[in-house]
């Protein structure tokens, strides 16, 4: 299993292809397999040296007790690039991976050439969204309720509270919960629940509206057609200097899984256009 040491942690990664560097960053509770299940690695690997890694606390990477803010993990991205000898890269981040990518672009503008933000939800922009619209969450909550786990409607996005509830289930309840909500990686979820990830992922951690709006690199803001975060999509389109908006048909929050062909095709086109362009700072 390929591993690389960065920020005093060991990260599991996968790499394929040759060409300009692209890094793929998954979301909280996910892992790099999403990029294989969706063929993202395979298709981007035809034109780019494509690297996916498991975030700290996830998959086969180390699980430190703390350090899970977008600022901390933007630091991981840059440290991994350093360890791999990658000077500049384009980042593709899904959900919280998009928040990490945005933070990396803001903190290290000379290292990040372009961004694909797939359905990110920024703590600093949470006031924009009507959180009750997330049908995916409502379905999940109903399934969990049938398994005896009551998840708060008010705090649905509160991972710390979610982890806390799941960790207090007994063995039989855990089995029912896992079967009901289809969470195969439950042991890893419980492991993550013992860290500060839940709270850290909700903190602004310096990625304020002002900092978000300071990003000038080319951005593809790609959201599911039925994403719960379309107000964020509109905000990015209006406020970033160099942003292209896109919708993935039929998808909700998880476009790489819900319409992988539509997602990968659009991302690939953006990266090809961006890497071919010698112009920067121009809306494409």
């Amino acid at each position, binding site marked *: *299993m390929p591993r690389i040491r960065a920020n005093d942690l060991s990260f*599991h990664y*996968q790499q394929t292809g040759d060409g300009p560097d692209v890094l793929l960053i998954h979301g909280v509770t996910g*892992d*790099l*397999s*999403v990029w*294989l*299940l*969706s*063929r993202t*690695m*395979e298709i981007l690997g035809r034109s780019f040296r494509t690297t996916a890694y*498991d975030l700290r606390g996830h*998959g*086969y990477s180390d699980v430190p007790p703390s350090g899970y803010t977008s600022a901390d993990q933007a630091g991981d991205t840059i440290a991994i690039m350093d360890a791999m000898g990658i000077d500049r890269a384009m980042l593709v981040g899904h959900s919280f991976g998009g928040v990490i990518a945005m933070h990396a672009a803001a903190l290290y503008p000379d290292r990040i050439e372009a961004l694909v933000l797939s359905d990110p939800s920024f703590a600093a922009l949470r006031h924009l969204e009507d959180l009750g619209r997330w049908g995916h969450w409502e379905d999940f909550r109903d399934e969990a309720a049938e398994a005896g786990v009551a998840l708060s409607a008010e705090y649905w996005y509160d991972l710390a509270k979610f982890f806390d509830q799941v960790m207090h289930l007994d063995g039989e309840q855990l089995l029912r919960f896992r*079967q009901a909500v*289809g969470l*195969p*990686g*439950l*042991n*890893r979820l419980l492991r993550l629940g013992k860290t500060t990830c839940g709270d850290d992922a909700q903190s602004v951690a310096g990625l304020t509206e002002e900092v978000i709006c300071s990003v000038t690199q080319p951005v593809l803001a790609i959201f599911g057609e039925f994403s719960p975060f379309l107000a964020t999509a509109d905000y990015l389109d209006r406020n970033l200097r160099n942003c292209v908006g896109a919708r993935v048909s039929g998808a909700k929050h998880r476009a790489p*899984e819900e319409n*992988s062909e539509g997602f990968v095709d659009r991302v690939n086109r953006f990266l090809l256009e961006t890497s071919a362009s010698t112009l920067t700072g121009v809306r494409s």
Partner: protein
Amino acid sequence: MTTIPDRAAILREVSSVLAHELGVSPTMPIDERTRFFADLGLASIDAVVLSEALQRHFGRTLPFHDLMAEIGRRTDRDLAIGELVSFLVENLKL
């Protein structure tokens, strides 16, 4: 002449790799009906690591990209060990 392992032999190899590389110690013996995710409690990231281990074990590159994409299209995102055996039988012939 290269000998192609039969299904039973491949199942033994897969069980051995699961035990030694992923630390899987199921309460029931693994057979072809055992489901990767629902029965063994594994996740798709384990399938990524297992695919690397199997390629190392058999000494060749196998089209796991296709198998992963196929799992990605499934509603339950699960895989019976028998399907993995079939995949290996088919691709080890080439």
